[in-house]
């Protein structure tokens, strides 16, 4: 007897969904087993996560506040990943976006009308996040430079640069010697609607825009073609450099907006870890969504529950909030593994001549 692997044709939608759900369930069981190994009760942990994320109005608001940066970052990542441009520089693009917004907030008059101020901050954020993505993009487009390492190193440079500003030129002289950057004036703070900063409206608008852009526009289609095969794109006469650069400007610009939201609504100033790991975490929902904007929104909401629930876990049971990263990683491991069963069929058959398993 011998295990044979063959490529599947198209799988019925129903079977595909079953495999995917099975993968997620298995991943939760796997995460539960890890928790058991560390002497924790997985049922209690999971119920606490759910209670901590949607158990009350304030907790739901907290969950949405976390979903905003996660979703918009994931949308930015989707645009790059669709092209198989591995932008893992979202963390730095968020940081630079925050830096741009902060520059405007602290240098422009605090008597500017709020909408104008916020608009200028947003422009600066898109510009700075975009630049941070543009630099690796142009090297990739013109010289074929490995973008994974490049975008990643840009993260560290952005964070070190903000640290430098925080301890140096931008240090608030009124902070009593503490290395802090000044708080934003009131007209530079994003207002709230239903108890959550208006980033949630942007989150929904961006989701729709990215969905429409990727599905119905020529540029969106070109990005997908480049991702499928650079050869095909070249053969079809597409300007690949241009597509790479435009897509990365969009990707980095959106991450920049995240920086503006976090600086303006959450911290009300600039800190070196303003991106708070969202740039990396967002890679998981982006990939789980199969690079679809609408699915990404839904998955990001679920992930925001995990993150918020993890924080609650820390507060209520004193268990490290890192539990949620472990669960997130486990889910993606299993979903990545399940792709195999969607594409290939396992069967047991007699060993044929000349074949080695």
């Amino acid at each position, binding site marked *: 007897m011998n295990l044979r692997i063959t490529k599947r044709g198209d799988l019925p939608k129903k079977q595909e969904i079953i495999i995917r759900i099975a993968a997620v369930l298995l991943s939760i069981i796997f995460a539960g087993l890890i928790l058991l190994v560390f002497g924790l009760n997985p049922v209690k942990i999971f119920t606490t996560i759910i209670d901590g994320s949607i158990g009350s109005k304030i907790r739901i608001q907290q969950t949405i506040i976390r979903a905003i940066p996660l979703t918009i970052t994931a949308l930015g990542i989707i645009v790059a990943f669709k092209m198989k441009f591995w932008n893992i520089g979202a963390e730095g693009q968020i940081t630079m976006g925050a830096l741009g917004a902060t520059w405007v907030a602290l240098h422009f008059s605090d008597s500017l009308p709020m909408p104008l101020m916020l608009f200028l901050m947003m422009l600066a954020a898109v510009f700075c996040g975009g630049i941070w993505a543009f630099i690796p993009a142009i090297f990739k487009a013109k010289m*074929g430079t490995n973008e994974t*390492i490049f975008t990643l190193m840009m993260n560290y440079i952005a964070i070190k640069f903000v640290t*430098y500003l925080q301890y140096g030129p931008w240090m608030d002289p009124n902070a009593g010697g503490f290395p802090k950057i000044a708080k934003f004036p009131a007209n530079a703070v994003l207002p709230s609607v239903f108890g959550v900063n208006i980033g949630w409206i942007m989150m929904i608008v961006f989701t729709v825009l990215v969905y429409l852009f990727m599905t119905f526009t020529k540029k969106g289609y070109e990005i997908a073609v480049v991702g499928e095969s650079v050869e095909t794109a070249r053969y079809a006469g597409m300007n690949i450099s241009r597509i790479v650069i435009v897509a990365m400007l969009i990707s980095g610009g959106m991450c920049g907006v995240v920086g503006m939201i976090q600086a303006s609504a959450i911290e009300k100033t600039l800190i070196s870890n303003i991106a708070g790991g969202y740039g990396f975490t967002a890679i998981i929902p982006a990939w789980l969504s199969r690079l679809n904007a609408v699915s990404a929104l839904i998955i990001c909401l679920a992930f925001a529950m995990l993150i918020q629930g993890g924080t609650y876990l820390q507060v209520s049971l004193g268990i490290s909030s890192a539990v*949620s990263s472990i669960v997130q*990683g486990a889910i993606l491991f299993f979903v990545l593994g399940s792709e195999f069963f969607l*594409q290939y069929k396992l069967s047991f058959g007699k060993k044929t001549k000349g074949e080695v398993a």
Partner: protein
Amino acid sequence: MEVFLASCVVAGVPLLFATVGELITQKAGNTNLGVEGMMLMGAVMAYVASVGTMNPYLTVLSAVLAGAAGALIYGVLTISLRANQIVTGLTLTIFGTGFAKFVGQPYLGKAVPAEVTQFFVKRPLPLLSEIPFVGPIFFRQDIFVYLSYILCILVAVYMYKTRIGVNLKAVGENTAAADASGINVTLYKYVHVLLGGAFSGLGGAYLSIVRIPLWQEDVVNGRGWIAVALVIFVAWNPIKAFFGAILFGGLSIMGMRLQVMGVGISQYLFDMIPYLATIIIVVFSTHKKRKESQPPADLSNNYFREER
């Protein structure tokens, strides 16, 4: 000067382990971007073992196993289940970071027991340490550093002088041809991916046990990623990796040194140098098309016999 160069070696050792590990992995045709995660897993498990057993050997073993366990997840997904290597590696880094935070939380800020740190004190080697200039730099180090020298030489001999090493090269360069010539491709990939993870685990352990012998969550602090870039810089050559790692070790401690010497430029600007240097390396190494400095031809391609 010698003192500074000796500390460059110390700063370079974790990079050396991780770089050599990733180099072996890539020679088998797999890019594992989970180095940072595996280093953290090694760092935290070595730390936990040091506290739990107070035995330096078990501490090192624990790091090896933890790194290899991380690599095993990556291996099953990319080799057997043919998942995307880039995304799987990234996920491993996220998972490993969470794992280290979670496991290490009760130990935050606590020191490695003296029984273990005693074992890793500087031990000058007889004769060798007396060599002018070279001796004080390379041979007045701790056992862990000597281990890195030995492993580095062993890997070089293994890659260039043994039959298995030649086969390994074939797997990375042309997987289908290697398979056709009777090499067990799957086995080769698994062994070298796991070996790579074990090396990364050792690199992490050096950081948490010797370099900064108390537990802190950001011990690895991007070194795993620098190692991935160093593999390109050293053109997949373990001997060059030795010097590359020391060079980058030096760059990473320069900011603090210059600050101490009273240079009037912010330390945080100097801290950018290793990352900037990495970018410059990546740009130039992809630009020049020298034959011997190219990646294995089948790197990052998952192999599926039925599709060839």
